[in-house]
């Protein structure tokens, strides 16, 4: 295998992997606040892409405005999901809540299909389609957008959770919810905020990826699963791990498709995940829980 084609696989792998990473980040945020896995996360990614398509092609809005509205729309839907489907049953055991999120995901997907259509759509690239040539491999400007924005989102979230008291308070809600109430944290507000941030992060991923890979009402299923694999691979609850896990899965998938067979492209992510879990059940960057009683 020559340099240019491996570089090509690397570029496309990193690009797709960054979106897996962003989806994984979305899982991480809700998990870190509530301790539940939100299986509707993939739908937020779909909503980002599809809402942008609707705004841009149907309403004829300029691209930047369409992107902005799509992100706001997805954030709003994240908030509605929390208020309508999660808060009324917040005292239920986590497993029930997880199943509710699966229901929400089916609902959002079906609503998008019925209210819009089943076709595949695309979005214009953010800054043209003139490829950049690096050592014989081509790199689309959109890939740079995806990697750059992912880095910004990741850094922003890390700072939020590590440095700001509000980020720490969000983490505290998952560690010890009762104590979070008792130090004066409005836990319900924090859960709402976590759904909104997750939806926003997911939508950012979806809207960036749409120009590269096209989008339709059902892209959320696979993206959601890959994102979930990404955050398990990186260690559940660790934002940095989720992003790294996403990049790793994207790159391995791309090399696997290129070198072995593209028919098994989607299987690679899960094979890697299974192999890793046999060796390191807490993920690449996860720490086993330490507790003293």
């Amino acid at each position: 295998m020559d340099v240019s084609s491996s570089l090509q696989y690397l570029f496309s792998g990193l690009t797709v992997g960054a979106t897996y990473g962003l989806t994984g980040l979305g899982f991480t945020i809700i998990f870190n606040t509530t301790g539940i896995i939100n299986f509707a996360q993939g739908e937020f990614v779909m909503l980002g892409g599809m809402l942008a398509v609707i705004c841009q092609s149907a309403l004829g809005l300029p691209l930047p405005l369409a992107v902005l509205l799509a992100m706001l729309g997805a954030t709003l839907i994240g908030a509605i999901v929390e208020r309508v489907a999660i808060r009324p049953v917040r005292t239920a055991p986590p497993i029930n809540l997880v199943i509710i999120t699966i229901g929400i995901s089916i609902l959002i997907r079906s609503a998008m299909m019925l209210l819009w259509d089943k076709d595949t759509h695309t979005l214009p690239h953010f800054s043209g389609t003139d490829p950049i040539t690096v050592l014989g491999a081509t790199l689309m400007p959109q890939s740079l957008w995806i990697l750059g924005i992912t880095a910004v989102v990741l850094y922003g979230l890390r700072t939020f959770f590590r440095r700001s008291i509000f980020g720490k308070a969000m983490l505290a809600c998952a560690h010890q919810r009762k104590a979070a109430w008792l130090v004066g944290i409005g836990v319900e507000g924090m859960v709402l905020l976590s759904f909104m941030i997750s939806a926003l992060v997911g939508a950012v991923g979806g809207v960036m990826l749409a120009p590269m890979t096209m989008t339709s009402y059902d892209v959320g299923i696979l993206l959601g699963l890959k994102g979930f694999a990404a955050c398990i691979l990186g260690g559940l609850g660790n934002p940095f791990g989720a992003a790294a896990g996403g990049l790793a899965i994207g790159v391995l998938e791309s090399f696997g498709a290129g070198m072995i067979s593209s028919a098994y492209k989607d299987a690679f992510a899960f094979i890697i995940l299974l192999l890793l879990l046999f060796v390191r059940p807490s993920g690449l960057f996860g720490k086993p829980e330490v507790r003293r009683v």
Partner: protein
Amino acid sequence: MLFLRNVDIAYGRIRAVRRASLHVGRGEIVALIGANGAGKTTMMAAISGLMRPAAGTVEFDGADITRARPDAIVRAGISHVPEGRLVFGPMTVEDNLLLGSYCRHRLGRASGVQEDMERLYAMFPRLKERRLQAAGTLSGGEQQMVAIARALMARPRLLLLDEPGMGLAPTVTREIFRHIVELRDAMGLTVLLVEQNARAALRIADRGYVLETGRIILQGPAGELLANNDVQRAYLGRDLDRETQPAGGAA
């Protein structure tokens, strides 16, 4: 400063506390004693807003807080150190204390947080040594100190302490109790203390209430409760029947 009037608290259809009334005056240490399951923790939860009373009122500093949310009650000046300590295990001791000051950060930055933290570190030097360690890895006594320090970071006027001695060695419990008295004397803090170890609690308290199966059956100055025969028999482990028997059964 705190008044509970005819409070009923229920878990579903089971009433855990019935028509309980109590008051705590400014600067007092009041002990609430009773056996396991008597409703002590339930009453604390009703004061701090974790549970809503089915009937009755809770009043703090003249304001009705019966139906207020826990975060509003913290801002009003009541901090609750919960049973079982409930520290934020994976976080450092320092972050635990910082989160204690959360209610002061509503609009961005809060002043004096660093100074308060230093003051608490001076009071609990062991926490300073371990300030970058995950709170969940500390010993039980140290975790209790974290829980108390975290509650104090909110600058409360009333501290609710639920079973601070639970699961701790007697010497550690004594140390914790010494700190409680110190806090009252140094900072004018008012304390409502729930404790199964009735003797230790009544020794540092000014007044006490005895709770039995959800009802307050006795109240009075701590010294009187300590000397009360019923209290001694039920909660202080004294066997009066046996003591009186060698004297010929005369009573």
